[in-house]
C-alpha cells in the first residue's frame, strides 16, 4: 500500500484514529471506576512505553539487553530530583530531562554491546540493573535524605494546573505514550529503523554498506533507555505515586522482557499487546480464583500458577512462533483472508466495479 501521509498508509491512519477515539472519547465516557485507571490503564501505558524501549534495543537492533527496570529507576529518580531541585523546568521539561539522564546511562552500559552479544551482553546489562538500583539506594542525595525508604512522588502540575485525579493522570500518560509511540514508529519505519534491523540481521553486511555499528548500537541503547526513563518517571508519578528502588528490581526487567518477546519482537504494536497480556492475565486469573473457586485457592498459589503459565507460553512461543503474538495475529489475519477472500474490502470493491 502506498503511504498517504508521511510514512503512514490509509490503514495505519484508520487504526490510529480508532485507537485515539477509543482512548480519548470512549474509555473516559464509559469507564467510571477508578480501579480501571489506577490499576490497569495507567500501568499498561507506562509499561508499554518501557516495552517500546526494550523493543528498540532488542526487537529492532537485536541486542539482548536485560536492564529496562534499571533505566526506569534512573528516569523516575531523576524526575523526583528535577522537580524537587529545578522546579522551573516544569513537568514536561523534567520528563524529557529524566529521559535524557536515563539515556546517558543507556549509552554507558550499552558500550559492551560493541564487543559482545547474546548472553554475554545480557550479563553486562545486568550490571546496569544492579548498579543503578544500588547507587540510588546508597546515596541519600537521590532520595533527598529520606530515611523511610519510600518517598512520596510530587503532584503533577502542568502549566499551573494539577493533574491528580486518576482520569487526569490517565490523560497525561496517554498523551506522552501517544507522542512517543508515533516518534518510535517514524524511526522504526525510516532510515533509522532500517539501520537498526540491518545490524540485527547481519552486522558485517550492514557495516559493509556504511552503517556504523558503534553509532547504531549506542544510538539504539540511548533511545531505548530514554523511553524506559520516561516510562519509569510516569510509572512512579502516575501509577506508584511513590519512589522506592525496590519497585524497579530485576523482576520488573524480566517482566518487560516477557512483554517484549510475547508481544512480538520487532513490532511497536507488539509492545502494547505484550504489556496488556502480562498485566491483564493475572487479573483474569485472580478473578477466576475468586469467582469460580471462591477464594479456595491461595493467592500465592495463583501467582505461582501465573508464573508457570508465563514461562510455559514463552517456551511455546519460542518453539512455534518466536515473533510473538503480533505475528500470530498477522498469521490469523492472513489465513482469514485466503480462506474468505470475498471479505477483503479491496477485492469486494474491484469485483463490484467489474460488474458495473
Amino acid at each position, binding site marked *: 500500500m502506498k503511504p498517504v501521509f508521511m510514512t503512514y498508509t490509509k490503514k495505519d491512519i484508520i487504526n490510529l484514529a480508532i485507537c485515539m477515539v477509543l482512548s480519548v472519547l470512549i474509555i473516559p465516557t464509559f469507564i467510571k471506576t477508578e480501579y480501571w485507571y489506577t490499576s490497569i490503564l495507567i500501568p499498561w501505558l507506562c509499561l508499554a512505553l518501557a516495552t517500546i524501549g526494550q523493543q528498540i534495543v532488542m526487537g529492532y537492533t537485536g541486542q539482548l539487553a536485560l536492564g529496562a527496570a534499571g533505566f526506569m529507576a534512573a528516569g523516575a529518580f531523576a524526575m523526583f530530583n528535577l522537580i524537587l531541585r529545578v522546579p522551573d523546568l516544569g513537568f514536561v521539561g523534567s520528563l524529557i530531562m529524566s529521559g535524557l539522564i536515563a539515556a546517558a546511562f543507556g549509552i554507558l552500559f550499552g558500550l559492551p554491546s560493541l564487543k559482545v552479544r547474546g548472553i554475554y551482553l545480557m550479563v553486562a546489562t545486568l550490571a546496569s540493573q544492579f*548498579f543503578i538500583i*544500588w547507587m540510588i539506594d546508597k546515596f541519600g542525595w537521590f532520595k533527598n535524605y529520606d530515611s523511610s525508604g519510600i518517598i512520596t512522588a510530587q503532584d503533577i502540575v502542568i502549566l499551573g494546573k494539577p493533574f491528580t485525579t486518576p482520569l487526569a493522570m490517565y490523560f497525561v500518560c496517554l498523551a506522552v505514550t501517544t507522542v512517543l509511540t508515533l516518534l518510535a514508529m517514524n524511526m522504526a519505519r525510516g532510515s533509522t529503523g532500517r539501520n537498526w534491523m540491518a545490524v540485527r540481521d547481519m552486522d558485517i553486511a550492514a557495516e559493509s554498506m556504511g552503517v556504523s555499528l558503534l553509532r547504531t548500537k549506542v544510538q539504539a541503547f540511548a533511545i531505548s533507555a530514554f523511553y524506559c526513563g520516561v516510562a519509569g518517571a510516569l510509572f512512579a508519578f502516575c501509577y506508584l505515586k511513590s519512589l522506592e528502588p525496590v519497585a524497579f528490581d530485576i523482576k520488573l526487567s524480566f517482566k518487560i522482557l516477557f512483554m517484549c518477546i510475547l508481544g512480538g519482537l520487532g513490532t511497536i504494536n507488539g509492545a502494547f499487546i505484550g504489556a496488556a497480556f502480562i498485566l491483564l492475565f493475572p487479573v483474569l486469573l485472580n478473578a477466576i480464583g475468586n469467582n469460580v473457586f471462591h477464594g479456595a485457592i491461595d493467592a500465592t*498459589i495463583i501467582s505461582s500458577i*501465573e*508464573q508457570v503459565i508465563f514461562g510455559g507460553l514463552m517456551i511455546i512461543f*519460542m518453539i512455534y512462533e518466536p515473533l510473538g503474538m503480533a505475528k500470530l495475529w498477522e498469521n490469523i489475519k492472513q489465513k482469514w483472508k485466503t480462506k474468505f477472500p470475498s471479505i477483503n474490502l479491496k477485492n469486494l470493491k474491484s469485483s463490484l466495479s467489474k460488474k458495473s
Partner: protein
Amino acid sequence: MVEELLFFMEVLVGGLLAGTMYSLVALGFVLIFKASATFNFSQGAMVFFSVLAFCGFMQDFNIPFVLAFILAALLMVVVGLCTERFVLRPLMNASEDTVLMATIGLGYVLEGLAQAAWGVEVRRLDLGIGDFPVPWIADNLKLFISALDITAGVVAAIMIIGLFLLFKYTKIGLGLRAVADDAGAASSIGIPLKHIMLLVWSAAGVVALVAGCMWGARAGVQFALVDLALKALPVLIIGGFSSIPGAIIGGLIIGAVEKVLEVYIGPFFGGAIEGWAPYVLAIFFLLYRPEGLFGEKIIRRV
C-alpha cells in the same frame, strides 16, 4: 600488622570458599553448554526447585535425609527428561538467542511449580554442619573460617574430580565430548544424542541440588536463591562458558574479589557493593578477554 594480614587472609579464604558455591552453580551451566551449546538460563531456577523439593520431602513428608536426597535427585532426572523432550528437541534448529529465551521461560516454569507445590515461605535446611568458625582452625591458625564454607569447598572438589573422571575415562564421557564437538557428526556415527542430553541434564540437575543444599543451609531455602544463582553468569564469563576448571576458578575469583571489595572498599560507599561488583568485573573481562580465562577464542568466519 600481623593481625591485619590475618584478617585479610580470613576475608580472602572466606571469599574463596564462598566462591566455590558460585562454582557449583556455574558447573551445572557448563555441563549443559558443553554438551549442547545451550545457555541454560534456568540453572538458577533448577537450584531453587531441587533444594525446595528436597526440603519438602524431608519436612512435609518426613522422609529421611538420604532417601529425600535420592528422591530429589530422581526428580531432577525427570525434569531433565522433560526438558530434553519438550523444550530442547523442538528447538534443535532454532537460533542461540531463541533457545536462551526458552530457558528463561523454563526457569519461570520451575520457579512457579516449586512455589505452587511447596509454598513460598523460607525453609530452614539443616545439614548438620554449622555455619560458624571451626574451633580447631581458629585455635591453631587464628583464622575464623566457617565449617559450611569448608564443606562447600570439599564437596565442590569432589564433584569436579568426579565429573573430570567421568568425562575422561568413561564411554559416556567420550560420547559427550564427541557431541560437544559436533552433534551432527556424533549422532551420524551412532552416538545416542538423546541419551547423552538426558544424562547431561540429569547431571546438571544433581549438581544444582548439591549447590542448592549448600546455599540453602547458609541463607535458608527461599526464592532469593534464584537471584544468588544469577551470579553464576559473571563467574562463567570470567571462566569461560565451556570450561569446567574455568567455572571453578571463576567462582573463586568472584567469591574472593567481592568479599575483599566489600570489606575494604564497601564501607566508603555504604556497603552492599557485592550486589553489582561481580557484574562490573565481568564487563571488564568482556572488554579485554571476551572468551574468558579458559574458553576457546571465538573466530567469526565470513
